[in-house]
């Protein structure tokens, strides 16, 4: 399955796989089997699988579980981050709708491994329509855990319309009944999380992958992907696209292959990783790997064709960030406002085009000076769009 080498980087051909959406009725067998295994052995297998968090940040999942297991404390928590708010991402909704048992099994596994008795699904308010079904499956699973002798209970909590709560410490603040304002790290949630107890926060798809790895084994899992990006991933594909939707693909493909498969033949740019990700122009498609060695993504792939104004795209993103910034740190709060005002001023000729260079500097300052991932990543879209489509921003 290994494709051509590009700059000595291993790449993979675009390959569809089918693990995540398989019927989830065998998940309990996987759990039963895993509960007979040693906790450290499970951690080692997860680390060996190379699984990295599927929310976008890409921390090694096995290591996260190991840190939480080793953290001192009798009370620990497992949280599933279902606050899927990154523009262009909709795969977690589909997972929760179609294979929730695979998610809950992953959470129970984590509970067993780290020694937690309580897990929470933090579901964004926008997905509340899923709640009745999820709660009934949760109740059923809680019964099954009891039967298996596993002291672990699943609960549900809701967001209330705040993108920043997808950031794990903001999510924890929100669960504690506060404004969703990210905390300084360290301490990390694995040592001081919910109610200051050791807490694992993983994305929906990450828990699903843990269940899959326990089912098929790390060896089989490692056949997929590249050294830096093991396994497969769900991609939420939208925009000017021949077939929008959710696709499960092996990691490590070239963006050019992706565009060939999903583009409409007139693709000008792809925004990889949502509003907080990077904009890749056509001329760089064949040098860009989708994965941790290239551009990582939580799954959001937005395709723009030549009819789209990249000024309009950037303006839309900046409005988004300006609204969703929690406002506690100045670089992000003021930076988002100034970037938005700035491109409007350049477009309307109140400012000269060289002002864009000042704005790029500001975006870079935000990257180092902002407190959390939100402010730190505004510059990703900003700089990549301004660099590659400067004339569209000015004229």
């Amino acid at each position, binding site marked *: 399955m290994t494709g051509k080498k590009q700059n000595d980087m291993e790449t993979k051909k675009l390959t569809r796989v089918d693990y995540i959406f398989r019927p989830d009725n065998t998940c309990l067998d996987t759990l039963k089997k895993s509960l007979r295994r040693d906790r450290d052995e499970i951690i080692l297998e997860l680390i060996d699988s190379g699984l990295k968090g599927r929310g976008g940040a890409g921390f090694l999942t096995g290591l996260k579980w190991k840190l939480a297991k080793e953290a001192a404390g009798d009370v620990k928590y497992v949280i599933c981050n279902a606050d899927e*708010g990154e523009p*262009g991402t*909709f795969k977690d909704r589909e997972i929760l709708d179609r294979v929730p048992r695979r998610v809950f099994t992953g959470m129970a596994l984590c509970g067993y491994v780290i020694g937690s008795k309580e897990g929470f699904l933090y579901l964004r308010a926008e997905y*509340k329509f899923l709640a009745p079904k999820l709660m009934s499956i949760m109740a059923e699973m809680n019964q099954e855990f009891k039967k298996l002798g596993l002291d672990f209970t699943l609960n549900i*909590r809701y967001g209330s319309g*705040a993108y920043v709560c997808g950031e794990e410490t903001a999510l924890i603040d929100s669960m504690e*009944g506060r404004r969703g304002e990210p905390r300084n790290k360290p301490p990390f949630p694995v040592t001081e999380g919910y109610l200051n107890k050791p807490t694992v926060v993983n994305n929906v798809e990450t828990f699903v992958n843990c269940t899959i790895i326990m089912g098929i084994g790390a060896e089989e899992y490692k056949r997929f992907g590249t050294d830096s990006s093991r396994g497969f991933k769900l991609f939420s594909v939208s925009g000017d696209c021949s077939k929008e939707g959710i696709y499960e693909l092996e990691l490590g493909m070239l963006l050019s292959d992706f565009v060939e498969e999903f583009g409409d033949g007139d693709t000008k740019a792809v925004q990889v990783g949502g509003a907080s990700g990077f904009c890749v122009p056509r001329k760089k498609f064949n040098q860009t790997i989708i994965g941790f060695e290239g551009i990582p993504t939580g799954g959001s792939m937005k395709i723009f064709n030549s009819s789209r104004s990249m000024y309009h795209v950037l303006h839309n*993103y900046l409005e988004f960030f300006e609204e969703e910034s929690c406002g506690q740190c100045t670089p992000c709060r003021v930076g988002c406002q100034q970037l938005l005002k700035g491109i409007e001023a350049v477009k309307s000729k109140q400012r000269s085009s060289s002002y864009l260079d000042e704005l790029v500097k500001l975006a870079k300052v935000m990257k180092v000076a902002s407190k959390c991932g939100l402010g730190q990543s505004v510059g990703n879209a900003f700089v990549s769009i301004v660099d590659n489509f400067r004339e569209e921003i000015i004229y």
Partner: protein
Amino acid sequence: MANTEMLVKELADKYGRNRESLLPILQELIDERRYVNDETMINVARELDLSAAEVYGTASFYSFIETEEVGKYVIRLCKTIVCDMKGKENVLQAIENTLKIKVGQTTADKKFTLKTTNCLGWCHKGPAMLINDEVYTELTPGKAIDIIESYINK
């Protein structure tokens, strides 16, 4: 409203009086009353032994916790890029013309409030909107008007 006081008490009994009960209580108040006014927030503060400012500070942080009066049905039309590319503006105009209100306003009969919101997670089926918790996707101006009319007649 003694009514509100009772409801807040009930919810505190149900969810507990810890700080982490605050959001679930506010969320259920929204389900019941559509918005939380000053009086309600003061009640919650008293019940949970928090300052009213803490309650307001938390409530006002979240875009789905309304602290001003809204209609029985809150329409939230997604304005993020892909829905925008797929014609959200025309859908918005159709809704505005049907309800005779602009974004941010509530109809005179207090039945509808119209808002725009950020990514709803339906980009592949945009434009999308929520009416309270209900999702509507692949909207066209005509389809949106039909949906709104079905609520007018509710």
